[in-house]
């Protein structure tokens, strides 16, 4: 009977087979952990962006758009970031199960844990305003990004439907009018004589506002309600324009 062990040892010696170095395996293992951390952080960013975009939208104005709430939700969901979040969660799972002991955990446990970490990171990114910076960076640097995300800007830049958003340039209290530069750079004269303020105590230049009202003429709008922009957009100096 063949002594396979003896034959194998001879082959190892003859062909000078050598064990791969320890650093090779350590590097491989660390690589998976590094990718795990990286994709978790990216998942956190995606989660933060979902929070940012969702919070930036106003959910009480859908009737102005002539649609139902369910339809408003379907239109408004940040699909791009939801898909990215799921993608990063999958990559996180893939990396985790390829670590030394990752396979010992069930898919649902790894998935829920990754989602929880991403949610915590995402909340942190959102809370400290990093998602606003990322959003601004993407809009400035990636052409077409704004088409992929239904943002507060898109939601409020519908003057024909009575919704307008922009930054106050000048106020003329004696005439009950103000000048507004909308998010696309157009200037509007706003009549606020019969408008009530919501979530904002006074009007001042450089403040970003959102207006519900009626377009009376080209670049002339009568305000019924003026409210502060939501999210981080309303902070002076944080976001001059899209």
């Amino acid at each position, binding site marked *: 009977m*063949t002594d*396979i*062990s*003896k*034959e*194998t*040892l001879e*082959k*190892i*010696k003859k062909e000078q*087979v*050598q*064990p*791969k*170095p*320890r650093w*090779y*395996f350590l590097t491989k293992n660390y690589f998976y952990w590094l990718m795990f951390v990286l994709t978790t952080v990216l998942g956190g960013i995606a989660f933060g962006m979902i929070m940012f975009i969702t919070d930036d939208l106003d959910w009480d104005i859908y009737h102005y758009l002539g649609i139902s709430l369910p339809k408003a939700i379907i239109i408004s969901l940040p699909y791009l970031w939801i898909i990215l979040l799921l993608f990063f969660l999958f990559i996180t799972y893939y990396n985790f*199960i390829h670590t*030394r002991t990752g*396979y*010992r*955990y*069930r898919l649902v446990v790894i998935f829920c844990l990754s989602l929880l970490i991403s949610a915590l990171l995402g909340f942190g990114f959102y809370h400290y305003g990093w998602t606003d910076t990322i959003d601004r960076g993407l809009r400035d640097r990636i052409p077409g990004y704004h088409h992929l995300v239904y943002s507060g800007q898109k939601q409020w830049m519908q003057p024909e439907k009575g919704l307008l958003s922009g930054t106050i340039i000048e106020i003329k209290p004696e005439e009950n009018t103000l000048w507004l530069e909308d998010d696309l750079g157009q200037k509007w004269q706003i009549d606020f004589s019969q408008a009530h303020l919501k979530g904002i105590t006074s009007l001042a230049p450089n403040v970003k506002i959102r207006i519900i009202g009626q377009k009376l003429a080209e670049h002339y709008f009568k305000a019924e309600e003026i409210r502060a922009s939501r999210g981080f957009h309303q902070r002076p100096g944080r976001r001059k324009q899209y």
Partner: protein
Amino acid sequence: MIYISDCEQKTDAELVRLSLKNQDYYYCLMKRYEAPLMNYIYKLSGLNRTDLEDILQEVFILVYQNLNDYNRSFKFSSWIYRIAHNYTVSQLRKKAQGTQNISWDEHDLEQIVQSDFDLEENLALKINYHNLLSIIDSLPLKYKEVLLLKFVDGKDYQEISDILRKPIGTVGTLINRAKNMLTQEIEKHKAGVKYD
């Protein structure tokens, strides 16, 4: 030259450490696992003796090349079984060769019967050994492999989990399903239903 007697008192982990310094110690490690691995690969693949020896030799070389990857927090047997399992399955896929008819010995069957596998009742069905073994052999690979590891090689759930790189819960589920499937197939056989 290292003799088997030099290694008898040494643990697997010690032999791994020594093999990395002196190739001759690797002979002891191979000798220790030659028979069980040959048996496992045979049961898994049904290959002929020549092919089995080729696969086992490649497995031993792979193990040697990856010795530095062995983590002492695992059982060495689980680690070497994992490499043998993965390599055998990959070879079978490459050859697009399904499992072949295997001649199991009665000892293997007794292992299954005497384990916690509740087959006593099914054995009372008077199915002969050959038919039962054919049924086991006809199960999908994922069920067959857990049956082999649990009932033929006597591995516990943690070891099977480490060999197949699956969570323990999944291993338990697979074993239960394999048992149920086997029982159903036996029932079919008893009822005279023809199975593949």
